[in-house]
């Protein structure tokens, strides 16, 4: 290829790449075309990689080959092995990998090419853009990398999922943030002509800050944080684009940064929690203890038997199933669908009520039920299904807790106060399948269980649902 031909190819491939990314995202907005969307985005990525390999003449090709081989094996293997219930932490981990890459790129750029070949000098106006974007992408990349790993550890329950708080937390975080900003500013002002330890200290402080800012976040706020970290990585990638003078990185990065931010805001709205509360509110830490104290120890609940519930379900005219993360953990979704099939055979109308944050991230429950082949037309969004509850004989709550907690309506001190919930308490009977009286993901008590219309079935969700199927068949 001639030099001009090469330039044309690289530019065209870059344009195709971002056009495909945007088209892919567009197609992802409808279930019918979503798969095409993902494939189109993949093709876009191929163009992007082809373009960059041509323009760098694949310098250091063996190093690229080693890196890609390692990454492809780890990425594809873990993507194929991960359980659908563990999807949120998998996304967090992949996101952390992207943030880590941005952090390393800036670090290498700083030490090898930038500070090495251009020892600053009077190049103001030329160097500024590079040095500013280099510092910013290193800091944001580190935040995203460290934060994502903590989010993964929390969701995978390798460490406590509860918020971790200590006195003076905000002050400590603010001081570290100041250190990061101060050193970053210093590097920018000096155009990088500084002892190496200053850059290294800035990087380490940014990593520590990433850990510390996710620690106090827990419970139902985790999905929002994952989405936020996703947009962080997008921003870091966009800024890396300025550093490397690559418009494809800028476009793709800001595309993800913007969409991630919007998604974060939408999620916050679905839970009625402003972003500032998510970041600084320590979900379920402060408010949760208050509610627990008010509940004064053990709740008064009524338990029931599988046979009674079997009869109740078999003679109902409408049953609404409210699935939660507990159902997915017990791998009960297939049994639940079988139970629904049995009931439908007897002429019972069965509907699934899906709360916007059911599962561990928005839309997670839809994925989990899809895995069990639950027909699409039986799934109802919160707003569509809530008017149905007063007309419903049995609300079957399977492994869900916070999304049906009436405390969200009227207990102002509750951490989930104001979150829209499924009105299960308006059904004639409420049957709750629970493993134990342990509180939900958010760590707060649920007055629904004490409702006189409620009865609890304790035990493993899958075993209980299987027993219910037998009971319904026997009626």
């Amino acid at each position, binding site marked *: 290829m001639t030099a001009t031909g090469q330039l044309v190819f690289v530019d065209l491939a870059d344009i195709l790449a971002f056009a495909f990314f945007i088209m892919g995202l567009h197609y992802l907005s409808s279930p019918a075309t979503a798969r095409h969307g993902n494939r189109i985005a993949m093709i876009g990525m191929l163009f992007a990689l082809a373009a960059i390999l041509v323009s760098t003449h694949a310098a250091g090709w063996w190093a690229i080959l080693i890196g890609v081989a390692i990454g492809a094996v780890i990425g594809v293997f873990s993507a194929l092995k991960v359980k659908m219930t563990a999807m949120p932490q998998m996304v967090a981990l992949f996101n952390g990998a992207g943030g880590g890459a941005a952090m390393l790129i800036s670090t290498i750029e700083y030490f090898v090419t930038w500070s090495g070949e251009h020892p600053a000098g009077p190049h103001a106006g030329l160097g500024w853009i590079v040095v500013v974007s280099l510092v910013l992408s290193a800091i944001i990349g580190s935040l995203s990398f460290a934060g994502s790993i903590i989010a993964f550890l929390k969701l995978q329950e390798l460490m406590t999922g509860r918020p971790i708080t200590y006195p003076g937390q905000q002050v400590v975080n603010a001081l570290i943030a100041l250190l990061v900003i101060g050193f970053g500013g210093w590097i920018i002002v000096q155009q990088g002509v500084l002892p190496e330890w200053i850059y290294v200290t800035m990087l380490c402080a940014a990593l520590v800050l990433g850990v510390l800012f996710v620690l106090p976040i827990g419970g139902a706020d985790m999905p929002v944080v994952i989405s936020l970290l996703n947009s962080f990585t997008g921003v870091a990638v966009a800024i890396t684009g300025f550093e490397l003078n690559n418009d494809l990185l800028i476009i793709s990065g800001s595309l993800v940064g913007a969409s991630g931010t919007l998604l974060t805001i939408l999620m916050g709205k679905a839970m009625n929690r402003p972003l500032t509360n998510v970041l600084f509110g320590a979900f379920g830490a402060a408010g949760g203890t208050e509610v627990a104290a008010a509940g004064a120890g053990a709740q008064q609940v009524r338990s029931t038997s599988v046979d009674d519930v079997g009869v109740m379900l078999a003679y109902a005219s409408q049953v609404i199933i409210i699935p939660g993360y507990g159902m997915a953990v017990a791998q009960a979704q297939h049994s639940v669908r079988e139970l629904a099939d049995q009931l439908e055979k007897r002429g019972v109308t069965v509907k699934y009520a899906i709360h916007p944050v059911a599962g561990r991230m*928005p839309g997670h429950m839809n994925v989990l039920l899809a895995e069990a082949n639950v027909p699409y037309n039986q799934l109802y969004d919160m707003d569509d299904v809530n008017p149905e509850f007063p007309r419903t004989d049995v609300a079957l709550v399977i492994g869900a807790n916070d999304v049906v907690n009436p405390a969200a309506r009227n207990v102002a001190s509750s951490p989930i106060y104001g979150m829209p919930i499924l009105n299960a308490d308006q059904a004639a009977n409420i049957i709750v399948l629970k493993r134990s009286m342990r509180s939900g993901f958010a760590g707060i008590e649920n007055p629904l269980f004490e409702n006189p219309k409620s009865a609890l079935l304790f035990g493993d969700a899958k075993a209980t649902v299987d027993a219910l199927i037998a009971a319904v068949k026997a009626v």
Partner: protein
Amino acid sequence: MIHLTEFFGLLTVLVLAIFVGFEVISKVPTTLHTPLMSATNAIHGVVLVGAIVIVADVFHAQSTLLFTVLAIVATALGTINVFGGFAVTERMLQMFKKKEAVKK
């Protein structure tokens, strides 16, 4: 090194892309939020392009072993982001398809 005129060209592109990002996502239903998040996640894996640039820079500068290794790690991380992100999205969306086939 980036000239000021180039910089404003890039800035224009940035601002336009932000608007496109907002516009494209605002129409996605809650059902698809999980696959969407993992798809956008895969798209920022384009950072792999940056990693390939940096590998080339490390080789042209004939840098030390440490930075060669770091560049390989950056490439591997970027690849995990791309391959893992797309594969996991594909897996999730396949389930949505299976469900529609059952409905028929």
